[in-house]
């Protein structure tokens, strides 16, 4: 059982107009076996939270803590975080020139486990995982994400999730740009990884669509860099009907203040 704990996190970025605070005191605790959905309108800071957990250099943490079983995640470099068990499925996976998927997957697996995977079982694991995610076998010989469609890139992110077996998976809008079939395939992958019982999941999404396939235990509504409401899966259903309007318009700030104090 592991715990990823985010406490009163403040994050800013440097813009041409100066420093801009994006996260304004976020607290969340995720334990192994739990699925948390973070939902919110565009620009609310959801993706900033995801990237900050992974350690993207663009985001400056100005206050608060992130710990993994008590270890200071913010003190770790990006690769150390991954080796500690944090995985970020990226919203926009980049194309990496010159590196084949096969080579990349093996190198990453070796780095994460601290030893090279057994070649025979590894090759089979990769093949099986690719098959389950309906990724063509020839992708193994292609360069990482190079020329992949949006949906293919997302599937390849989940492929890594299944192969690297992290303690915590942060899925940053993995559902965006997916058609229904791809969404199902990707969700099944996440559910398989979750079913091992060794993973906690932080699912970041704008839409409730993916929650039909991946059932959250907790739903957090994110507005303007803060969690404004928290609840169980029923909160997602309510969002589906009502949208985010009641948080962003008028009463939003009052709710936010109340939630921040709660």
């Amino acid at each position: 059982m592991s715990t990823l704990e985010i406490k009163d996190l403040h994050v800013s970025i440097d813009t041409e107009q100066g420093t801009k605070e994006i996260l304004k005191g976020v607290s969340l605790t995720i334990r192994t076996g739990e699925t948390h959905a973070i939902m919110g309108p565009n620009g609310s800071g959801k993706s900033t939270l995801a990237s900050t957990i992974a350690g993207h250099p663009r985001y400056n943490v100005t206050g608060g803590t992130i710990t993994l079983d008590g270890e200071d995640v913010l003190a770790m470099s990006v690769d150390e975080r991954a080796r500690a068990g944090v995985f970020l499925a990226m919203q926009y996976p980049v194309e990496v020139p010159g590196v084949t998927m096969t080579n990349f997957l093996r190198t990453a697996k070796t780095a994460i486990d601290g030893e090279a995977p057994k070649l025979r079982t590894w090759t089979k694991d990769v093949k099986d995982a690719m098959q389950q995610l309906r990724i063509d076998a020839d992708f193994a010989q292609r360069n990482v994400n190079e020329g992949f469609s949006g949906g293919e890139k997302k599937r390849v992110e989940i492929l890594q999730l299944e192969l690297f077996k992290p303690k915590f998976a942060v899925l940053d809008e993995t559902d965006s740009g997916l058609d229904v079939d791809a969404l199902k395939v990707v969700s099944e992958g996440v559910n398989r990884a979750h079913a091992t019982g060794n993973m906690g999941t932080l699912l970041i999404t704008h839409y409730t669509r993916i929650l039909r396939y991946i059932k959250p235990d907790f739903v957090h509504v994110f507005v303007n860099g803060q969690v404004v409401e928290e609840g169980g899966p029923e909160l997602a259903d309510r969002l589906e009907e009502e949208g985010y309007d009641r948080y962003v318009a008028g009463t939003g700030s009052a709710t936010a203040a109340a939630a921040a104090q709660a």
Partner: protein
Amino acid sequence: MTAEITTEKARIGAPSIAGFTEEGEGLVSAKVDHSHNHGLTVMSSRAERLTSFDVADFALPTGREEEWRFTPVRGLANLFSDAATDGDAAAFTVEAPEGYVRGSLAQGAAPRGTVLTPADRAAVVASANTAEALHVVIPADAEPAEPVRILVDGAGAGRRSNAHFVLEAGANSRSVVIVEHTGAADHNGNLEVIVGDGAHLTVISVQLWEDDARHLGQHDAQVGKDAVYKHIAVSLGGSVVRLNSNVRFSGEGAEAELLGLYFADAGQHLEHRSFVDHNVANCKSNVLYKGALQGKNAHTVWVGDVLIQKQALGTDSYEKNQNLVLTDGCRADSVPNLEIETGLIEGAGHASSTGRFDDEHLFYLMARGIPEDVARRLVVRGFLNEILQQIKVPALEERLTEEVERELAANEN
């Protein structure tokens, strides 16, 4: 400072508007695949470029000439001067089975001069100042177990060295010839290659010069009927290296592959030019140059010319250049030129891409647990491997892989 990247569009020897040429030069008769015509400037045919054995025919380059416009010519006066080799400027060693070295060839003594006619100032002064050219012949049907090696070891920076080698691969022979450059010198080196009918010859020109060496070279090959010629240029060292690898055919069914790998560090200028002259029908060519750049003012140039002459029916040709920019402050020039005088061909393609390994790539790999130094090595090794694995001489491949790693390590420190 960001990386400066120029990718010029291919110039195809056909005006975009029939009958009109921008520079008012003669009409180029050409049938081209118009989807391939980027609507660009028209230049005179590559075939019309001056070649001569007379030094006086080549003025000192100013940098304004088409073929010198990317080169830092101002610093190369010593290499352009019509000067003899400085006594012991470079040591030449040949490792080859007995009987392969046939002594030397004077100017005008065939086969010297039958394939290579100097095409620029550096080549003509090298030719004029090499009284006796090394002559190596791989006998017909021979399949030497070990590569033939020609070692050029420069004795010191600024020392002027001229060389001209004549290499003949006899009919149906199978061989690899490595020309290796180490040490430092101001070296002008010509290589003249005759590939006999049915022969398979791989020439690997390795530039492992010290930092202060400068090297200008012209490598010309003529490939016989059903023969297979592969030229691989690997340039890692030297302050200025400029290698022209040219090929034409003397019989049908021949194949030529011109490959290159380069890795430019801060201040280094590595330039490669290739010219495939499809002067005979039913031949194949493939050109692939890949380069990595890192450090301030690292500059690489690739200019790839392919000319498919009217009579070269059934030609199949492709050329590609890819560059990987690792840091800010680099410049990669990449210019494919495709000139097609007949539509009756199998294929003629070109591609050029210059990509950047940037913080987002690094973040992606590191977010998968891969440490920064491993991530960089992974990318560069993966990228250059396509050329390295074509070397097929294990000891050399290993050594060059290590040299590439050393280049990378130098950047990390």
